[in-house]
């Protein structure tokens, strides 16, 4: 098997045994990127030279018998939502095309000190808003299994990078399903940790109470390895939780005894593709064969998940994105032109003695705000800013935002009740397999529905993992999801590992990896 096709766990063992160097591996990844990414378009930027320098430095240390971090020189791709010091971090927005943060996100710092080799920044939906990576301000990413299709999103680039074996691991973010949904659509494993498990410091905010950073990899084992490095309390993030981080990789092989898996009947209703439904049922059967007990549970408020999410997330987004006004941050409209136009307009109104028009005329500052934002943001981002601004306005706040918070609480209560009778909840991760590029662009609501099975975990703040469980007739991966109570990543990973030991769906790469272009 080619180097790049191996799992992170296998590669790490070889690195530590001195059978392969970080440089060889990094070069192999860069070669793979060179080979396939002109078609997949997972990366916004590849840091070839910096990655090679880092790899060499790590190899040198290993050679000298000096300590090497837990990731031992493994290449990792990072969603372009995480700040990397001195290098562009764009959130895939034209708004931040020229933003070079002077600091590293905490997760980036942890990756560096664990001796990960960051090979590049991956594409995403602009400001993580979307489920197809088509909302990127730069270009869409394609699904390595079928280049006419989307890899999902918003961490589409991160998922495609692992699926096309360009990197063994990647870091994504999940606000409503943005790790799990693309992992499902790309046939890889992706975990959204419990809210507060991983620091958000240095992550360009979309919806702060929902955003969570998480790992993507080929297997649960790989994901456990990366989570172990990035998880943990951060004094720079007040919402990160001071709980010890378990050694996920060590407990992983221990099978779960007497596992009770909750199944939600509503998950199998309208909108779920029958092939997906069958594959998920088959996955449940695998668990049964491994001794798990299936428990019927109810999440009666889950059906309000999308509605609730699309109030809360845009509200927070409208606030978080206010700073991109062209004055301190973000694209600034051409000021000279703007001032000239303003003067012309004023002269015209004065000549016409149009006092009402003059009163309505923006001053230069307001006009700069308006135009910079109009030019810098893409359509979906604008849509969500408008939704959020509206919902937070005086007179609407209680009807939308406060009400959504109440439903959010009910959704959380549903989970609390459900987890009294089961350990984890099993179900679909997406209603369908990967859709065609452009297929849902004209109808934002249909795109919002791809988060149907994932948003509730974000609203409740709990963890979830997506992993492959089969292929559709069209040759597209099908994934399923496990959700667990807050801070039960260990259980989620063990359950996912059990499944992956019993099946082999996750070991099969897409054709683009194995065939020559």
């Amino acid at each position, binding site marked *: 098997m080619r180097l790049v096709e191996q799992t992170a766990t296998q590669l790490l063992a070889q690195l530590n045994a001195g059978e392969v160097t970080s440089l060889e591996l990094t070069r192999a990844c860069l070669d793979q990127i060179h080979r396939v990414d002109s078609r997949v378009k997972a990366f916004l930027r590849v840091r070839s030279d910096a990655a090679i320098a880092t790899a060499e430095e790590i190899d040198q240390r290993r050679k000298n018998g000096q300590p090497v971090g837990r990731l031992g020189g493994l290449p990792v791709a990072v969603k372009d939502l995480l700040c990397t010091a001195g290098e562009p971090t764009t959130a895939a927005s034209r708004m931040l095309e020229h933003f070079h943060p002077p600091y590293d996100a905490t997760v980036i710092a942890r990756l560096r000190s664990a001796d990960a080799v960051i090979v590049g920044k991956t594409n995403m939906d602009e400001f993580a808003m979307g489920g197809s990576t088509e909302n990127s301000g730069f270009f869409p990413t394609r699904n390595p299994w079928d280049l006419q299709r989307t890899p999902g999103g918003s961490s589409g680039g991160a998922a495609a990078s692992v699926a096309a074996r360009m990197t063994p691991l990647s870091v994504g973010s999940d606000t409503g399903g943005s790790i799990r949904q693309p992992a499902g659509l790309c046939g890889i494993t992706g975990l959204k940790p419990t809210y507060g498990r991983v620091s958000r*410091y240095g*992550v*360009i905010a979309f*919806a702060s109470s929902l955003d969570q950073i998480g790992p993507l990899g080929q297997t649960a084992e790989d994901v456990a390895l990366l989570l172990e490095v990035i998880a943990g309390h951060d004094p720079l*993030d*007040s919402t990160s939780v001071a709980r010890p981080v378990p050694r996920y990789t060590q407990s992983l092989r221990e099978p779960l005894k007497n596992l009770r898996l909750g199944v939600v009947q509503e998950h199998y209703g309208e909108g779920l593709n029958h092939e997906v439904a069958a594959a998920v049922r088959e996955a449940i059967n695998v668990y049964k064969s491994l001794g798990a007990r299936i428990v019927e549970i109810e999440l009666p408020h889950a059906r309000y998940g999308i509605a609730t999410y699309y109030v809360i997330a845009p509200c927070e987004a409208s*606030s978080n994105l206010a700073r991109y006004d062209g004055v*301190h941050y973000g694209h600034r409209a051409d000021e000279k032109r703007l001032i000239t136009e303003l003067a012309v307009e004023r002269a015209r109104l004065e000549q016409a003695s149009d006092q009402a028009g003059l009163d309505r005329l923006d001053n230069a500052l307001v006009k700069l705000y308006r135009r910079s934002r109009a030019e810098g943001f893409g359509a979906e981002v604008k849509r969500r800013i408008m939704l959020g601004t509206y919902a*937070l*306005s005086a007179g609407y706040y209680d009807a939308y935002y406060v009400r959504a918070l109440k439903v959010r609480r009910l959704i959380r209560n549903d989970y609390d009740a459900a987890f009294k009778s089961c350990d984890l909840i099993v179900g679909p991760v997406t209603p369908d397999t990967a859709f065609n590029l452009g297929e849902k662009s004209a109808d934002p609501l249909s795109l919002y529905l791809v988060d149907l099975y994932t948003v509730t975990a974000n609203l409740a703040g709990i963890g979830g993992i997506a992993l492959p469980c089969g292929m559709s007739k069209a040759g597209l991966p099908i994934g399923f999801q496990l959700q667990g109570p807050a801070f039960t990543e260990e259980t989620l990973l063990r359950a996912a590992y059990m499944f992956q030991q019993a099946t082999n769906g996750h070991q099969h790469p897409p054709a683009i990896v194995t065939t020559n272009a």
Partner: protein
Amino acid sequence: MPPYTLIIGLETHVQLSTATKLFCRCSTKFGALPNTQTCPVCIGMPGTLPVMNREAFELSLRTALALNCSIHQFTKWDRKQYYYPDLPKGYQISQYDLPFSYEGWLEIQAPLSLGQGNGAGAEGSAGTATPSPQHAPPQRGRGSLVSKRIRIIRAHLEEDAGKSTHDETAGVADSRIDLNRAGTPLLEIVSHPDLRSAAETRAYLAELKLLLTYLGVSDCNMQEGSLRVDANINLHIDTPQGKIATPIVEVKNMNSFRAVERAMEYEAPRQYEVWQETGQKLGDVPKQTRGWDDVHERTYGQRRKEESSDYRYLPDPDLVPVTISAEKLEQLRATLGELPAQLRTRLESTYGLTAYDSEVLVNQGRELVDYFVQLAELCGNGKQASNWMQQDVMRVMGEQHLSIAEYPIGPAALAELLKAVKAGELDTTRGREVLARMLVTRNSAAVVIQDLGIEKVDESDMYALCQELLNANPKIVDDLKSGKQQAAGSLIGQAKKRNPNINPARFREILAELVAREPTS
């Protein structure tokens, strides 16, 4: 007497004297080069998150406790959203519907009003100022001061914005932003509209500033913006149809207590004139914002956009709510120490000071009061200690710009001198000479007294000297006999020339006694 009552409520922004900002670890020091005290967090850089400064929160809690506020056990942070170039995040982190403290009061020493029937217990527009209850200290002896409670609606903590400067030079409109101040902790204290005059408003601010100084929570420097005041003012006009409230006006940009006082004095007749012209009542027009022009001593209308400000408050998801335990509160309460009001009462009851004297001393700050208390205890006379503090110590402090800590003579050394004066070893004038010399030489009173050759003059020597002078000045004896008391002065002067150590007061007594015995010539 104008037929109206002033109704004034204040919003005071106090910059807390923490070493670092509210949500990051940048310095809060004033006066640094623009934008040098900033970091990714306080300039709102994408991806950064705020982390609450616990010290700022504790200082706020202490202040609220000293203002007799109730404390919410659970408080949260909200984003107040508006666009302005000195607000880099596009929102200010503040507290909206769940401030950490609410409903307190500050007792002020309000000047008794001249006319207007205001003062304690006058009617307010949003309520009534509570007159001092029975357990409050009795009205002060000075006669012109009266205790009055000004109710506090709330005190909450928020971050400051940056500073914009605009160069309006014709043709080169240039705006610059300094974000050193952005993120500095601000405590906003909102009073009920319980103030009834410009003088009361000033008294409230003075008392608030004193309290904050005693608590050590702020340096209250108005020039540097550590204390900022916005006033809401309107009138209650007596008309034959009853009381009419005029529209509320908010006055901003007042840079000193005097400016606040002058602005209130300016606003009252202005608003009355406006009412006479327009008849506008409260609710007829939206609240107007006016600025204070310190040069021309007048307020002016500030242009405001039609759109009313909707701040779209949102609970800040980046910060966790703060819970305050009863235990913590008690702990903090114990650190408050004696506050100005209590201190004044103690100085009056323990050292027999007048309300005026205690006010003067307490207003100088806790260190000076500590000095005074030591001095009074050591010399055994509060009134004498107070007089020397005010007439001598504070005068030198003022002339030489010294703090009490920098004043070269400690309370023990001064007490030694005061005791000598009290014992009649030297008179007050000579005592002052001694003190002046002590300041220069840093020697003890005893040493200086010896150096200056001061010694108590024997009674018999004084009688002898007096008789000798009387004999030599028959004219003066006649004058004194005919009641020309000023004639004694020249004799005392001669006596002091002969022996600088004689106590003029005692000499005057002896003189009177001897003159009375003198046969009429």
